């Protein structure tokens, strides 16, 4: 079963690196990419070209982007009743304290800064995969009594 991951990232270099790293870490991950905040919101709300877009199991959000930055996107996701349950992780180059604090205030599920080295980056992506996608239980992956949730999920998305 494929794991839908939305990467909101404006840098093609980072997109490629992330794709490479996920490919090495988990074959089951299907990486969707939005290159800015507006694009990301359209994907999540299945607007325009993204009308068929799946509801992501995980969103990786860069902070500094054109048009609508990651903080705005985070704020909208967590302000939306339907979208707020999607685990949203900040993945950025910033190590600034205020960025970290602000992100968690906006209910980011996690905050990672991109390491400079290739191997370090690959390790980080591997960690995200193993912890958030494999180990952690995500909405829609619960037991029978949680079938409502499973049913609700597509319905919710469908709505």
């Amino acid at each position: 079963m494929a794991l839908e991951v939305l990467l909101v990232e404006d840098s093609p270099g980072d997109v490629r690196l992330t794709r490479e790293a996920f490919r090495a870490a988990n074959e089951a991950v299907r990486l969707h990419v939005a290159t800015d905040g507006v694009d990301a919101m359209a994907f999540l709300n299945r607007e325009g070209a993204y009308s068929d877009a799946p509801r992501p199991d995980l969103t990786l959000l860069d902070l500094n982007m054109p048009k609508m930055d990651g903080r705005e996107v985070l704020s909208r996701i967590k302000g939306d009743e339907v979208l707020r349950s999607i685990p949203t992780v900040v993945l950025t180059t910033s190590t600034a304290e205020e960025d970290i604090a602000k992100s968690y205030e906006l209910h980011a599920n996690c905050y990672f800064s991109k390491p400079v080295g290739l191997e370090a980056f690959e390790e980080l992506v591997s960690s995200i995969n193993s912890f958030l996608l494999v180990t952690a239980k995500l909405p829609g992956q619960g037991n029978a009594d949680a079938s409502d949730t499973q049913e609700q999920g597509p319905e919710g998305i469908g709505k």
Partner: protein
Amino acid sequence: MSDSDIRLFRRLQLYCQVSALAAMGVGVLVMFGWAFHIGALLTIFPGDVTMKVNTALGLAFAGTSLWLLLPGESRTRRGQIARLLALLVVLIGAATLIEYFSGLNLGIDQLIFGDPLGSNGTSSPGRLAPATAFIAIGLALMLLDSKAPRVRWTAQALSLWAGVIAMAAINGYIYHAVVLSRIWLYTQVAVHSAIALLLLSGGIFFARPRGGPAGDLTGAGSGSLMARRLLPAVLLVPISLGWIALQGESAGLYRAELGLALYATVSVLVFAVLVWSNARKMNREYDQRSQAETDIRKLNTELEGRVAERTTHLVQMEGRYRGLLEAAPDAMVVVNVAGEIVLLNVRAEEQFGYSRDELIGQKVKNIIPEGFAERLIADGTRSASEALAQQIGTGIELIGRRRDGSEFPIEIMLSPLESPEGILVTAAIRDISVRKGAEKHLAQMEGRYHGLLEAAPDAMVVVNVAGEIVLLNVQAENQFGYSRDELVGQKVKNIIPEGFAERIIADGTRSAADALAQQIGTGIELLGRRKDGSQFPIEIMLSPLESPDGILVTAAIRDISVRKAAEADLLQKIDELNLSNEELGKFAYIASHDLQEPLRMVASYTQLLSRRYKGKLDAEADEFIAFAVDGANRMQRLIQDLLSYSRVGTKRRELVDTSSEEALQRALVNLRSAVEESGALVTHDPLPTVLADEMQLIQMFQNLIGNAIKYQKPGVPRVHISVVRNGAKQWTFSVKDNGLGIEPQYFEKIFGMFQRLHKREEFAGTGIGLAICKKIAERHGGSISVASEPGQGSTFSFALEGVKGSHASQQE
């Protein structure tokens, strides 16, 4: 001359006049008798001797002469006639004497009248019997007023001689002793001739009663008195007694011898009684006189005593006044209204250089040329009383002139003084050279002080304790835009509305002394107000000044508009600089942050390239890729260090109580791999709690210990962190290693940005670590320094402020 004396002389005068008239009368009557042959006139007793014509003429002449001489004016024509008559008397006497001695009949007796009765009892009929008496009388009359006292004496003696002759003749008549007269005087004298002659000789004798023998009788002395008393008895008693004795004898009562004995006995008795009574009287008188004398002497003594007393008093008074005058501290000169000096004291002598004698009687103008004499003397424009009124004056300043002509300033005080000599003016003259000198000096000093005040670069205002402006300089005028006159006497509040006057004046909360103490102050910044109302910032310095008018406060006022503007400008610059620094810090942070993005790309993709294509391209490609990877790695470290450095400045956190022990432990955790790789031994003292930014303190320890481990020679690196108390509140931390050490010339340089002492091949590094340490030390209000010996190791030290009551030992 006593009353009795006057009476005596009057009587004598009268007697003289009577005697003169009697002589004249007798003479004229006898001549009348001869002329008309009246015998009764020629002789008193009929048959007796007649008076001859020449005798009568002599008597008339002599009487007239005496009459004329009596008033005593012998120099007049009257006197001349008198002496001429006297000469005629002498000539008649002389002619008679010659006739008598020569036996010639010169016919003098018959010259005028013939002898009608025939000469009886006369050897030479008609000849002058008492010729000598006439010569004596004439000479006496002529010599009466002679100049020589001896001659006058002789004249009186001559008159007495004539008197004796006359008395002898009279006695002859009384005792019927014609014989006697023949013996003595050759010729009998007619009775009335003798009496007239006696009277006349007495008159001549007493004509000049004050001199000669007459003087001895008329004198006031006791001798004269006695003589006057005894003389009548001497003249009368023997003659009377003799006559009585003669009568008794003639009556046949006794014999001549018994009569003489009786005469002598009675004479002695009478004279003895007279002498005794006289002596008794004189003794009484003497007693009275001596009593009187004693009284007089007593009176005299008393008087003398009184005079002496009075004199002493006067001398004393004079002495006192003189003493007063001399004791006066000033020169004193007393001047009369004529402007002449009457009196002066020693000081005046000294002051003007004259001696007393040279000045007394001189014009005061000689010593005070102007302004003094003018005050004394009334002139056309003033009456004497006005001049007097103006004499009183004090503190009149004039010029005095010394004897040598030099002049000096004086001050005179005048006061008028009424005296028997008229109004005098006492002038107290003070030499005021010294005072004038002092005044000049004072004026000079004042001038200097004034000059000093005016030369002051600041505005100077002197204020009294009432807050009123007393003095100011031209700078003050300019600064406040007032003229001097507008400010002097005004309240200082007008130009410095607040903060100045309050300091000067004591009020309810302060005593005057406290207020004074607060007057002293420097650099008090206030606001000044110009005349146009505009205000400007001033700085004043106050200092109190004691003066005769009370305490004054001198305020030096500086217009600090420019300084204030400069200060404001500076503050603005500082703000701008701070802003700029902050922006720069932000820029450095943002720049280094944004640089990470492309750097990550370069680093990641060169690594990816290296991983996927190593060995698949040629050896050169592999080398190029290795350089790119290395460059990317270094750049990464550089950017991270830059970020750390900029964070020290931009990330300002409050300094809080921080455990340096804990900070060290955290630093060591961060350094764990480096410590383990090098096998270093890191030790430390017990560390205290300090006031610090914990993150930065960790960074500090991390950098210093990291360096200590990194810059090592072969062997076991040893690092020791120690701390010592430095003063009351500071702790000095030291990180000591046994590493390479540093040359002294680099001690400063190593704390600079990007400064490195080693090649990259020897030790990797960015040259930012110690710059960060320096910045952290400064951020904590201290500094960092190094002590080192190359090859022996280095010690880096920095100080941090301790926490109250914290001790290193308590942290264990």
